């Protein structure tokens, strides 16, 4: 009950057996549904990763080219954030990281 196991004495006899069987079936059903939910989530994660992977790869490659172009134009990235022109010319420095 509310995440806590509760033992309830229901006596003995055919009626108690029946109630115990019902409880067991319910417990089994809950377990199966939890396993199915975990499987669903794992499948969903795999599906999302399948869609995201090429996006992330594309993004990374574009970033790499952009960084190359900025480096060739004389900019240097400061502490993985701001790109600044070397030789003290930072008049067009841009804040923000990639």
């Amino acid at each position: 009950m509310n995440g806590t196991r509760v033992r309830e004495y229901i006596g003995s006899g055919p009626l108690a057996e029946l109630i115990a069987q019902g409880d067991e079936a319910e417990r089994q059903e809950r377990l199966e549904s939890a396993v199915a939910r975990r499987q669903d989530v794992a499948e969903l994660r795999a599906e999302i990763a399948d869609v995201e992977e090429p996006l992330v790869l594309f993004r990374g490659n574009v970033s790499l080219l952009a960084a190359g172009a900025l480096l060739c134009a004389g900019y240097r990235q400061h502490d993985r954030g701001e790109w600044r022109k070397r030789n003290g010319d930072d008049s067009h420095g841009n804040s923000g990281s990639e």
Partner: protein
Amino acid sequence: MAMTLTATAGASKKDIGALMRAQSGDEDAIPEVRQIMERLPELAAEIAEMGRVAELKLVEATAGENYLFAEAMQARAAQLRESIAGPDATPLEALLVARVVLSWMDACCVDVRYAQVVKDGFAWEQLREYSRWQDRAHRRFLTACKALAQVRRLLKPILAQVNIAAGPQMNVAELGNTLAEME
């Protein structure tokens, strides 16, 4: 910038290594980076192809067998790419624009999927996964916009507004080039 990349046919591991070294402050790598940048159009074409693969995968995952929706998504993406890039986009700019549009599509697709899940009934665990995907997609979109703005601002000629005494206000495009020509 994230530099955890795999080598592609156009950019070898050595190229990537040089770019990463240059970015971390190794000046000896700069000549190598310049050589890589000479192949920029070729590299850009190859990376653009990767973008198309990513786009198709995204469209397929979202539209499924609804081919009308799939076509509409791709047409809209092409339209956006054209209007954001403009007529004079450099290969690098075109790539950055493609990244913006792809990230936008990604964010829209996740929103569509999220709405479907909510409508069709959902498990909290699934909703949480979609919600995380949504966060990542929106972050990627914002980063892509920022990267495009950054490259346009730093690598394109400056647009400046000049007031000339009492005369009309005029915009002078490519002020840097104009001044250079005057000298």
